[in-house]
């Protein structure tokens, strides 16, 4: 349900642009955030807010891969498979996660907890291989650090991971922000510890290949 409160926020976003149509992307982020994915209702709400036709909005939704029209797991894991990450072993990470989570890339686990996706370059090539969990970056990932992360997500229940990752998503401008989890977060500590331990070895490994 797109409630009155969301409608108000949509109007508010629209009011900040000289041309209403320019507000399409932030509006879509907002309705996606509200409902977890972009529903037909969300499309119509956005179309109305920006004075476009629903088909035009649909076209944009399908164009950008950060919008989804399918319900997804509570944790969406995106593994970058573009060139830098590819050279640095993302295939192994992805294969490992597929096996660990029991799903293929593009699928959602039957308990609705995890969605695993391959992503195009996440603009973190300097610390490849990179992946994102609900918009949060994890870099220099290895199969081990990926395991640690999944362990954490499973043991902490989804909520801890979700809230930490979910809250800052809207920065008040309706934009998704991406930032590293802060160091106080146990998951990050765990992952980063694993990172440090592995980095050198892995870099060497990559070169050897």
């Amino acid at each position, binding site marked *: 349900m797109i409630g009155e409160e969301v409608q108000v926020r949509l109007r508010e976003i629209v009011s900040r642009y000289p041309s209403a149509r320019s507000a399409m992307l932030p509006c879509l982020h907002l309705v996606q955030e509200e409902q977890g994915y972009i529903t037909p209702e969300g499309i119509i709400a956005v179309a109305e807010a920006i004075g476009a036709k629903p088909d035009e909005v649909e076209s944009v939704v399908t*164009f950008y891969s950060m919008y989804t029209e399918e319900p997804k797991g509570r944790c969406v894991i995106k593994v970058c498979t573009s060139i830098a990450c590819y050279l640095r072993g993302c295939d192994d990470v992805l294969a490992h996660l597929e096996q660990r989570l029991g799903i293929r890339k593009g699928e959602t686990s039957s308990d609705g907890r995890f969605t695993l996706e391959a992503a195009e370059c996440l603009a973190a090539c300097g610390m490849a291989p990179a992946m994102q969990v609900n918009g949060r970056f994890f870099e220099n990932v290895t199969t081990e650090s990926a395991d640690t992360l999944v362990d954490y997500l499973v043991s902490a229940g989804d909520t801890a991971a979700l809230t930490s990752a979910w809250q800052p998503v809207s920065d008040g401008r309706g934009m998704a922000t991406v930032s590293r989890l802060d160091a106080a977060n146990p998951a990050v500590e765990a992952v980063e510890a694993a990172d440090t331990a592995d980095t050198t070895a892995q870099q060497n490994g990559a070169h050897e290949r």
Partner: protein
Amino acid sequence: MGEQQELVTITIDGREVSVPPGTLLWEAARQLDIEIPIYCYHPKMDPLGACRMCFVEVKGMPKPMTACTTTVTPNMVVSTDSPMVKKSRRGTLEFLLINHPLDCPICDKGGECDLQDFTLRHGPGGTRFDLYKRHYVKPIAVSDRVLLDRERCIACQRCVRFCQDVAMENGLVMMERGFKTEVGVEEDAPFDSIFSGNVVEMCPVGALTAKSYRFVTRPWELKRTASVCGQCSVGCNVLVDVRVNKVLRQYSRTNDSIDEGFLCDRGRWNTELVNSPQRLRTPLIRRNGALEPATWEEALQLVAQRLRAVASTHGASAIGGIGSTHTTNEEAYLFQKLLRAGLGTNNVDHFHGRFPAMERNGLPWVWTDSIAGLEKASHIVLLGTDTYNRQPIVDLRIRRAIRKGTRVYVVTPEPSRLDRLAAGTIRYNEGQTGAVSRALLSAVLSEPLTRGDFATKRAASVAALRDSLAHTNTEALAAFAGADATALRALAREIAQADGAVLLYDEMATRESTGETLAQDVLQLALLTDNFGRPGAGTGPLMEDNNSLGARDMGLLPDQLPGYRMLADGAALAQAWGMTLPDTAGMDYDAMLAGGVRALYVMGADPARHATPEQLAQLEALDLLVVQELFLTETAKRATVVLPAVAYMEKDGTFTNTERAVQVVRRAMQELPGARADWQILIGVANALGLGWRYGSPLEVLAEIGRLVPLYAGISRRGLGAEGVRWPFSAGESDATGKPTLVGSPHLTWTMVEHGVTGNGDGAEPALPRAHGEQG
């Protein structure tokens, strides 16, 4: 047209061409007959530069340029066949073909496909791609009538841009991106637009096809005829494609002043009219209460004999004729001639809006501006119209105007598809278009908002008009009509301040209970606010059928002769026809149906369909009912004699559209065996009556019209050319091509108004246009 412009001269392939600044290279090359292959570019849409097919080499530029987005600059040197160009064309085509299924043998587009043709002319001989091609389920229906083969799509986005930018309706959009890009429809926004067929015509490949044409024929088997659509009063130019006497499809034959190369789905696909198996194939005669097949000879003799019988027992005034708004001008002309000169009665009419005869000989109530003029208007006010359904391509032109910034007001009882794009909408109760229009006029008079010379010169008449409307002020009329008075007043103010407003009403709205003064009120509204006599300003009715205006022009009226000549001025016509003409006005449509006549001759009309029970009873009680028709209509079922006629694709002639354009209709196929064109039937009846008519073809009738009918004086088929001519043309004068010269500009001017419409008095204050017998 317009002011002189400095031309820019450029060289293409060693040849010079001079074109206006801003011209695209593609267009400049076309003027030299140099083909630059295009996919995404479409002359009626903004350039996009998406397909990269149109590469040319421009001297001084390091890389190939797209001819569809590059405009000319002085002294540019362009090559369309340099090695660089050839290589880039080959490259583009090689890419396009990577995923193309090459199912040409079963593709409806095969034989007229730009991908086939350009590959042949400019493409690589082979491919370096030997992997698997992308495959999709095919075809998928994107609407009830249009199918999509995604594999064949080259992502040129013509269809998408048509839906979004031209039709501005829900429809096709691009989905996904990269190699996954495909055309699609959003579920909640179905592609049900009346303009949908245009995407099939525009698609350069076989990705979008018409359901009705799928696997039906190969294009080279079609016989193509240039003609005019006969399904509404717009008169779009079409190419009728026929195979073995069946209309298989129709494409647009671009006429920029009317359709800009678009057709509506009704015009494009409604071929039932001619292809239907229900068509009448033999004359029918009522014997012992039942209609039975008869020969043409029997039927024509019977009609003549029974007409003579009625005339001798009850007099000529007991015979009446109801003509058609669908048949050609030539047929309408012959019909009234048969009634007037042959049978001696002015009882002739057709089903039409309420347009009282003007006080003196004058112009009728016509659209004073043009379809193309809509784009120049600052305001368009639609009164009681439904352009989307009734005059779709006018609706499309209104959409183009909206895109250019025109403010459109939709003043109608029902919501319309234009509402979403309109500057404002005003709703009122069904049947109150007249009251609403008078409320606007009343607001203009009372505030007062009148402006311009026309009103100033007629100050006294305007004051008198104001007084006569004083008791019906805007608020009272708005309340009566159930409309918002404040909104109406605001609209009246906008009209009075507009750079140019076009005020259009639906012909049939004049038939509503308050419609009696509608035509006159709206005309006065336009005149008194100076919205007249220039492109982008004016007023008039949007007519109902393809030849509604032609029917009036040709004198299917009880009180006016062809060309709106008054009965009293009929001497010249009588002399030319060699007959005396009845000089009293005849019965109109309603009077004839109210039992006024004993014999009724109906050509191409179906009065029973709109008839009241009393009128139906009268129809059944007639001594003689003759019906010329394609189908066994409700009226035909009650006829004494039914004469099978043919559709507009099966005959030659002319139609006059809602903006006064007279256009040539051409026979695209053989007549249905057993049926005859209405003009042939009329000649048959006339000769059975012993009138000795000798017309060999509609051309000869047109020549007579050109001699005898004011407004059509000097008309000839050659002069009408491919795109028709809008009346008034000047009598007898024509240019080198035989095209009659227009009187002044193609929009009717004040001078026309003062001399024609208003019947300017001698020296006295000129009068306001008034209907014959109207008070005030």
